[in-house]
């Protein structure tokens, strides 16, 4: 039912997250539960499908891993007990490793934003978007 086409990104993600997307049977409950799908181009379950099919290029260009808020609702809902939040983080890291430089730094924010944003948001934001 599930075809796993080996790709480097898949292996990296598996190593990073300890989760095996082969277990996913594409029920899409994660996507149904995700609160931020409106802003995503690929739905969470599609990200997993692309991993299964080795469609690295599309994943590199997708917005979805960055829209992910790490709210863990997907992981809580998954009937196959997959920790999707971790897998998404694995995808983000795989993407970052293929980039030149970081995605997002203090230089991308105005002084007003830097002043107003809570410290925790800044720290986790930089962590999310950078190597």
């Amino acid at each position, binding site marked *: 039912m599930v075809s796993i086409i080996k790709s480097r990104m898949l292996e990296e993600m598996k190593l990073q997250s300890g989760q095996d997307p082969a277990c996913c049977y594409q029920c899409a409950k994660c996507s149904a539960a995700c609160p931020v799908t409106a802003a995503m181009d690929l739905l969470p379950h599609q990200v997993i499908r692309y991993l299964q099919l080795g469609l690295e290029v599309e994943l590199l260009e997708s917005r979805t891993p960055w829209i992910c808020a790490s709210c863990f*609702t997907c992981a809580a809902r998954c009937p196959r007990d997959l920790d999707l939040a971790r897998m998404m983080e694995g995808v983000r890291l795989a993407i970052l490793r293929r980039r030149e430089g970081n995605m997002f730094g203090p230089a991308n924010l105005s002084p007003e934003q830097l002043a107003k944003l809570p410290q925790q948001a800044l720290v986790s934001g930089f962590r999310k978007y950078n190597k």
Partner: protein
Amino acid sequence: MPRTGVFICHCGTNIAATVDIDKVVEAARSFPGVVHAEDYRYLCSEVGQDLIKKAIKEHNLDRVVVGTCSPRMHENTFRKAAAEAGLNPFLLEVANIREQCSWVHRDIAEATPKAVALVRAATAKAAQNDPLEAPSMEVEKRALVIGGGIAGIQAALDIAEAGFTVDIVEREPSIGGRMAQLEKTFPTLDCSACILTPKMVEVAQHPNINLLTYSEVEQVNGFVGQFDVTIRKKARSVDATRCTGCGICHEKCPKKAPAEFEMGRSTRKAIYVPFPQAVPNVPVIDRQACLYFQKGRCQICAKECPAEAIDFEQQDELLERRYGAIIVSTGFDQMDPSGYGEYGYGQHPDILTGLEFERLFNASGPTGGKVVRFSDGKPPKKVVFIQCVGSRDKARGMNYCSKICCMYTAKQAILLKEKVPDARSYIFYIDVRAAGKGYEEFQRRAAEEYDVAYLRGQVGKIFPENDYLVVKGVDSLSGKTIEIKADMVVLAAASIARADAPVVGRILGINSDSYHFFNEAHPKLRPVETHTAGVFIAGACQAPKDIPDTVAQAGAAAAKTVSLLSKEVLQGEACTAVVNQAECSGCLYCEAVCPYGAVSAVEIEERSAGGTIKRTVAEVNAALCQGCGSCTAICRSGSINLKGFSNEQILAEVDAICLQC
């Protein structure tokens, strides 16, 4: 010293081509105890067997060794021949010099000494053999069926038609089980009650069947052919011999209680029959609800009953009966999906399980057969069905597939359209499983002709808004998120084992799997037997199942039962374990490891130090023992031994086989 005869077979050239027969016979003559040795081309033939029989008589042999093909092939053949010559069949041993010698080695110089060693080992073992008898057990020609659903009903009818007496014990006040709760059955859309009730009546009227409803099995002792069972006939508080089934009592009863038959979605009276076609049509007083039993008031039923059948003084009755075989057909439950907070079951009256939705269609159901919402009594125009609630769920539910939900959901979508012509159904599914006869066609009909939107995906959240339910889901095939303002949501909750299945399993001594479904003896080839001889299983208590498979399995269990009950005596296993109780220390490790419950603790009296003491030791029930030897291997004091494969026999084989000459 035994008088052993050794017979080596050529098996044409199968053995003779790679094993020097003459050398083996020559060597055999020198083995301890051997007084006669010969060979023949085809020992298993009639001539060959006669040769053995003649030699037994002529040479007064008391042990026989045959060097032939595998014992799995012809051990019984040669044993029967020995028996016909007056020798106990268990005094014969087989040396496998074909499958495990001549056929697997090329070099005659290597195969021959090996054949010699194997024959020597068999001879050494045979010298330690004792004559054995397979125990004969009586068979009580009466069967017990536990559970009066369609499985139990069918099994009972088949056994009764074969001429044997059957008792059906059913916990509820009426037989019928889950099938009585259904409105229509897939794929034929037969009215469930219409096909079930004739069988229920047949059961009630059959001269060979006794119905014990509102009863439970409390204890089972004994073993195959002689199960001694204690049954509790719970007090109905109604005299069944006087009751005419007129129904006035439950019509007039003022007290209501949640109806189990309706999963609590409507009420019944304190005195009630679970459904109008109940068999027997004798009501039962729920003493927990009844005003008389709780508060000493009322008694309206007794006053109104024209047959004076109400009996408040009635007590539970304990019956002790013996049965030759037992069939377990205790059925299944539907999982309570409250654990899935995202679906909101229990938070809103219009979120139902599949079984609850089914009851809406029934004329005696909670809504009188009208498909309407519990919240406002209006018919639902948009119904969302969610498959796999609790099934195929490793994380929070059951890892297995419940098998029937894809089909009954398709059925319910069809029924909905027929009852509410402008209704639309949305079915969220992961895969559609429609493997039975006519099933795929039925499901396609639902998908194509009944305004059903099959959405491949799942639902993430359901919450009430105004007077509808917002259902947020996804269609994985198009990658689109979906939001439906539904009037009703139906959850196809998993089929699970009944909550008290472990209790039933323990009473009967049968095993269950991790989901508490009862274990069959072999998943492929023995689907209705258990590892406990004489106890069979049928229906959904073994695994989630639809009605055709349930009926087939019930027939299979009945056939096994009839075959058992038809025997005059039952032959047990001859190679059973036996305890030397004087040496037994009573640690009872053997009891713990026995898969068949064949070992039990028993108190014996012994003379000790001038007086008499009581001591607990182990005892093996030869009727139940299957001869595996687990007890023998674990015994710390070496006081339990296995006939046919005793410690002495095996050690003698080891000694002989290791000799390098």
